[in-house]
């Protein structure tokens, strides 16, 4: 359990020496309790106190990286059960599994596909985060060769080495040690040997057990061998297992401060049918997985999963914003209708969707209003006649149009008079109040 400021204060030297940068030990203790500073800032505190405070101040779910470099994926550090309480912190990594006996061509092709999987969605770069190499051949040399091939063809992607044989794992880990692969295949039987390999190479480790009871014992055992960067595999097979185990593990860590389950979670969503696999993977993403493993990365599948992950991990307190721009729909000409709205992502998605549905070539100006919707932006003074006029003038749109007619959202019809005054020579037309009336409105405009 986290300590209070007063509890921490009792453990400090109480000298008010100010070496930590705070005027008093009490002020430092309060800041420590709030998580804004590290205990190491105090030079005089005893090692024993450091250990006590370190344990108490550790986040309820341990945080560390999968992989190395710019494309490493942070995991763990979650604080809540529900995204409406607070933003989910570290988005679930999407990993694809490949078997070591798939053949060099297939392995190369998969690794290259992962290396080239990056796409851009609403300003975020999204990609397949990791490759899991599964040992099914039972042949150490073959496994090591497959691991090396993947590492070479996907030089920045995080690696997960999935093999239960410690000897095979050791050779493979050494071959790609600089990539800090996640070692997957540790059970009660081989825990010491696997932990030794992980420790020697500074790699994180997956603890695999059947159920959370056995898993709790195993993580304690692994921790006892000196490895703390642990990922949980509860043996979840069905979607039900995924939801129940992940919920119980997160609850235990967050609400009961149960350290043996205070780690990120890995789930397999591998299914024979690619669409079912996408569905099961989406269960894991929504319900607390830090890594979800799938068997194939068709573009449509990863697009759906990236998008769902983005939705679930969006900050509920910060509106998603779209870049200010004049968006062209269905190849507009100089005569095409010209509309304006605000840059709240939901507003943009709904309005642009309806404009596209209308199939009427059009332009949609999306004005930066700090991510507020039309009525809210108007009420907040960000979507006013003056600001709209300024934006339209500076946008250079006049050169692209043969007309000077701007269609205003119906919700802010009140602005039309003032806007006509400020935008000389322009006609302001009041559009529909609701987006679903846009197709009819646009069709009537061009017919």
């Amino acid at each position, binding site marked *: 359990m986290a300590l209070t400021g007063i509890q921490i204060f009792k453990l400090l030297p109480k000298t008010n020496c100010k070496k930590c940068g705070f005027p008093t030990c009490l002020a430092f203790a309060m800041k420590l309790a709030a998580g804004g500073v590290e205990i190491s800032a105090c030079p005089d505190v005893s090692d024993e106190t450091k250990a006590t405070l370190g344990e108490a101040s550790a986040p309820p779910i341990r945080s560390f990286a999968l992989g190395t470099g710019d494309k490493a994926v942070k995991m763990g550090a979650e604080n809540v059960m*529900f*995204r*409406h309480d607070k933003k989910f912190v570290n988005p679930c990594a999407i990993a694809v599994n490949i078997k070591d006996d798939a053949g060099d061509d297939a392995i190369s092709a998969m690794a290259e596909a992962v290396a080239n999987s990056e*796409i851009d*969605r609403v300003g975020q770069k999204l990609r397949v985060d990791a490759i899991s190499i599964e040992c099914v051949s039972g042949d150490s040399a073959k496994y090591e060769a497959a691991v090396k091939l993947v590492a070479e063809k996907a030089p920045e992607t995080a690696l997960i080495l999935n093999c239960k044989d410690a000897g095979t794992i050791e050779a493979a880990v050494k071959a790609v040690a600089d990539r800090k692969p996640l070692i997957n295949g540790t059970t009660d039987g081989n825990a010491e040997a696997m932990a030794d390999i992980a420790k020697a190479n500074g790699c994180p480790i997956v603890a695999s057990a059947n159920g*959370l*009871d056995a898993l*709790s014992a195993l993580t*304690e055992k692994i921790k006892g061998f000196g490895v703390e960067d642990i990922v949980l595999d509860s043996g979840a097979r*069905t*979607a*039900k297992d995924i*939801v*129940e185990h992940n*919920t*119980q593990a997160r*609850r*235990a860590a967050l*609400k*009961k401060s*149960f*350290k*043996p*389950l205070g780690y990120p979670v890995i789930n397999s969503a591998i299914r024979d*049918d*690619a*669409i*079912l696999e*996408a*569905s*099961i993977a*989406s*269960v894991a993403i*929504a*319900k607390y997985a830090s890594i979800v493993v799938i068997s194939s990365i*068709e*573009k*449509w*599948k990863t*697009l*759906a*999963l990236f*998008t*769902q992950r*983005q*939705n*679930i991990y*969006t900050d*509920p307190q910060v509106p998603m914003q779209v870049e200010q721009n004049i968006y062209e729909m269905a190849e507009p000409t100089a005569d095409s209708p010209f509309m304006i709205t605000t840059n709240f*992502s*939901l507003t943009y*998605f*709904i309005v642009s*969707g309806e404009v*596209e*549905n209308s199939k009427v070539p059009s332009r949609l100006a999306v004005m930066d209003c700090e991510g507020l919707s039309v009525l809210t932006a108007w009420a907040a003074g960000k979507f006013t006649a003056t600001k709209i006029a300024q934006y339209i003038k500076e946008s250079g749109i006049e050169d692209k149009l043969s007309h000077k007619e701007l269609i205003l959202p119906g919700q802010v019809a009140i602005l039309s008079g003032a806007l006509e005054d400020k935008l000389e020579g322009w006609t302001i037309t009041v559009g529909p109040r609701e987006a*679903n*009336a846009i*197709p*009819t409105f646009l069709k009537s405009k061009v017919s």
Partner: protein
Amino acid sequence: MSFVVPKETFSGKVLAVDFGKDDKKITIGGENTLPFLSFEGECPNKPAIAYEIQDCPPDDWPETVLNVYKDVSSDTVTWAKYCQDELKADAIALRLISTHPDRDDRSAEDTAQTVKDVLAAINVPLIILGSNHIEKDANVLVAAAEASSGNNCIIGKAQEGNYKTIVAAALAHNHKLIAMSELDINLAKQLNILITQMGFDKTKLITDPMCAALGYGLEYTYSVMERIRLAGLAQNDQTMQPPILGDVGMYVWKIKETIAPEADVPDWGSIEERGIAWETVTATSMILAGTNLLIMRHPKAVENVKKTIDELI
């Protein structure tokens, strides 16, 4: 330290609502814990899925889903029978879209006949939806409620601007009712209160907090649903205990990801699977947030969501 399963018990319970008749009757809701957490509570009824059909050819549906129904969708009754007999639909949702003034502006009386014809042809439960035009729905749904009297249908959607006449019709003809508000837990609660104040039994209500497609505001729907569930279960808020509807198909099958051909967006992959996956993942996300009743369009998406549900229970 030994592991103790961290169970939570809730004082509230989601109301169980049935619709349809005889052995085809479906019951949704009834759980006293969050979705699928049967280790700590009861989840007696799994989420149900209704196939969406319309009272006119679905010209505005994208090809992926239009093609599935191309031989049957020119006639509403044929379409309904196809869903029931060939696709083994558990329920059917008939959307009276042609009544919208911007579509065919079909009259309420005409529509009533379609409702009767469909009911005569099927025995699975029927959901009857308006065109989401506030004024027109007030007439159309009243006529539809009368035409389907005695069939224990779900009628909807009643909204703030038109609920009074629709509630009265559902009451008079003993139907279940969908109350729809726009992505706001307080509006959802307020509408439920207004409706029950008219004497409508809260055990016959279904809440539609408004759906959104994956990538198009799904997170808002997801969190509003989770908050409604928590209000009903943890705080035992009686007004937040009706089952939840996810009207998934109509939101999914109009966005770019289900329409744009692969040639235009090569990074997005096959349009066919993309559309099906989009509807599947949207629906799966909804049931994890608390949806009890889904309305969907593509049979492969329905099939995969059903398989997911079977894995979840």
